[in-house]
């Protein structure tokens, strides 16, 4: 195989061809992949092997392209990987939360109430039993809750406070995207004053007000999509680990936001935020007694309780 005066000369035992080089179609190089010459009459000739490919690259270097440019030098690839990683971190830390907040603010209320109602129905079936608190106690808490002055953040969901008993979940409280707040009997019993309970309730209202439910769902969807897209064909089990870690970090951010919200509300209502911290402390002590070990910080959906207490007291 040779080129003389712009004519490609092919000679072997079986074939002998002379073709003007300009009329031969050669595909672009792709690493050391064999390249194929296509002649005008439909015949093809495959060029394989390092030596032959190097020769062909001199004759037909291929169209310049971004991929060829990147593949040509190792430092360009290193630079591209660094750039890309920074972009991905930025997308995770800044872009996704921002986008989720924008979308969550624009989603129709019907979506939030549909999700909230369905969540409550399934929670009722799985983990909740009806509350056994005396009606007078419930009424007292409700009265205290309705007397709270909330910061005027405009378009707010209607808050509905309900009581449930749960053997499985113990002392806990939940906020659903539609403004439903569930508090368990055990948590009410654990509180020594209404002020302490209002701290927890304000924290949950912080979740509702910040639309953390919807934002969390959206952020998790983005994380799931990206992780599945990039790791799905490696292993589904392996993909679930980074997903868990990435989601947990988002969740901890929401918890800190809700804590800050609670502190603000308590302060606006003349309640010392320390009351909220006291209840958190007692919750943690209960967990320590039950010897239920906390997961490591990077896996946890909540910031460490000690850090939360310190943040609340220090604010």
């Amino acid at each position, binding site marked *: 195989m040779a080129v003389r005066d712009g004519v490609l000369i092919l000679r072997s035992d079986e074939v002998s061809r002379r073709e003007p080089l300009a009329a031969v179609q050669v595909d672009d190089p792709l690493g*050391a992949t064999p390249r194929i010459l296509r002649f005008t009459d439909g015949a093809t000739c495959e060029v394989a092997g390092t030596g032959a490919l190097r020769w062909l690259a001199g004759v037909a270097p291929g169209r310049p392209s971004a991929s060829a440019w990147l593949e040509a030098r190792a430092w360009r690839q290193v630079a591209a990987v660094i750039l890309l990683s920074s972009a991905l971190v930025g997308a995770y830390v800044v872009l996704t939360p921002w986008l989720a907040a924008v979308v969550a603010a624009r989603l129709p209320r019907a979506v939030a109430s*549909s999700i909230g109602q369905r969540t409550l129905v399934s929670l009722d079936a799985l983990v909740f039993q009806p509350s056994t608190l005396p009606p007078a106690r419930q009424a007292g808490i409700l009265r205290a809750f309705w007397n709270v002055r909330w910061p005027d953040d405009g378009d707010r969901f209607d808050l509905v406070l309900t009581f449930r008993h749960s053997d499985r979940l113990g002392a806990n409280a939940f906020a659903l995207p539609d403004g439903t707040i569930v508090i368990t009997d055990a948590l009410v019993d654990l509180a020594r004053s209404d002020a302490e309970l209002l701290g927890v309730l304000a924290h949950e209202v912080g979740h509702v007000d910040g639309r953390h439910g919807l934002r969390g769902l959206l952020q998790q969807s983005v994380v799931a999509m990206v992780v599945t897209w990039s790791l799905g064909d490696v292993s589904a089990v392996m993909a679930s680990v980074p997903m868990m870690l990435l989601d947990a970090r988002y969740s901890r951010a929401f918890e800190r936001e809700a804590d800050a919200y609670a502190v603000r509300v308590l302060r606006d209502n003349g309640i010392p935020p320390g009351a909220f911290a006291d209840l958190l402390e007692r919750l943690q002590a209960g967990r320590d007694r039950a010897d239920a070990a906390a997961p490591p910080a990077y896996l946890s959906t909540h910031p460490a309780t000690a850090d939360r207490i310190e943040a609340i007291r220090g604010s």
Partner: protein
Amino acid sequence: MTTDVAAPAPRTEPFAFTGSGRDYFPIWLTNVVFSVATLGIYSAWAKARRLRYFYRHTRLAGAGFDYHGRPAALLKGRVVAVALFGLYSLAGYVSPWLTLASVAGLATVLPWLAARSFRFRCRNTSHRGVRFNFNGSMRSAYGGFLGLPALALVSLGLMVPFWHHRLKRYQHGHSAYGRSAFGFFGDADPFYAIYFSASLLTIGLGIALVVGLGLAGSLVTLALTGSANPTRVEPGSAAWVIVFSLAIVGYLAVITAVQAFLAARIGRHVWAHTTLGRTRFVWRIEAPRLFVIRLTNLLLTVVTLGLYRPFAQVRLARYLTEAFVVVGAGGLDAFEALPAGDVGAYGDEAMEFLDFDIGF
């Protein structure tokens, strides 16, 4: 006096794979970088480049295979796939009925998409300038991808081997290389035998995993904390991390072993019963070797945060390819005498609007 004319011994021709991880690495990296930077749009081009790389490095009798799929067609497939999947996942947020409707909708179009994709893959593959083809009917596609899976579900999995057999028969029985048709004459019985062994293997390995983890957990906690009760281990502690990692690796090993067993046994059986004219195939793929390659590939890919992936792909492709042998029935010219006509019969004009690869 008579002369015994010995029939020419069947000539065997092994496949060869000439790609290398080192050579493929920059191509893969470029694919990843551009795909992410374009929010996935480039992935169609990436796929075409990847397939071109692997096909051309797959060589038989001195000639490579080639992939002709155009990125635009692949992109169309991706858009359809993303739209279908997006519709399905969004439906769940709105109403359970909508989910049901979207599942029904998916079930209706998926067989069609699957058959189309398979045909696309075949028609865009060539060897020595001769294209492969696929002419399975839509009716069998609906039977195979919709009817039988439904039956398999209803029968609590007892129909799965049967369905798998029908699927292979559909694919191998309706493919062609140029003008010569592939034939498939395998029974469903061996599929049942293989699946039965796979179930036993799963149960055996599962028990071994649980027992082994219990033992390892006790040993690790004993060594690190002095108490042999692994349930008392604090999450996040060194012992917990070790036991947790062992559990993940063990679980992956069991899954990979069962998958490798199924893939190797089914693959060998299917190709042993596939013909192309007078040509036969032998796939000398061994489950233990496949298991070792896939598990180490997986672990190395995770440990290197993905950077080993191109090497893993090449390593697997080399094993799968080089275990493949073509047995020609008649002497030396068997392969050169493979149908030469019909070059490009399914060329560009066949790439109609609705042809695309959804890439299952």
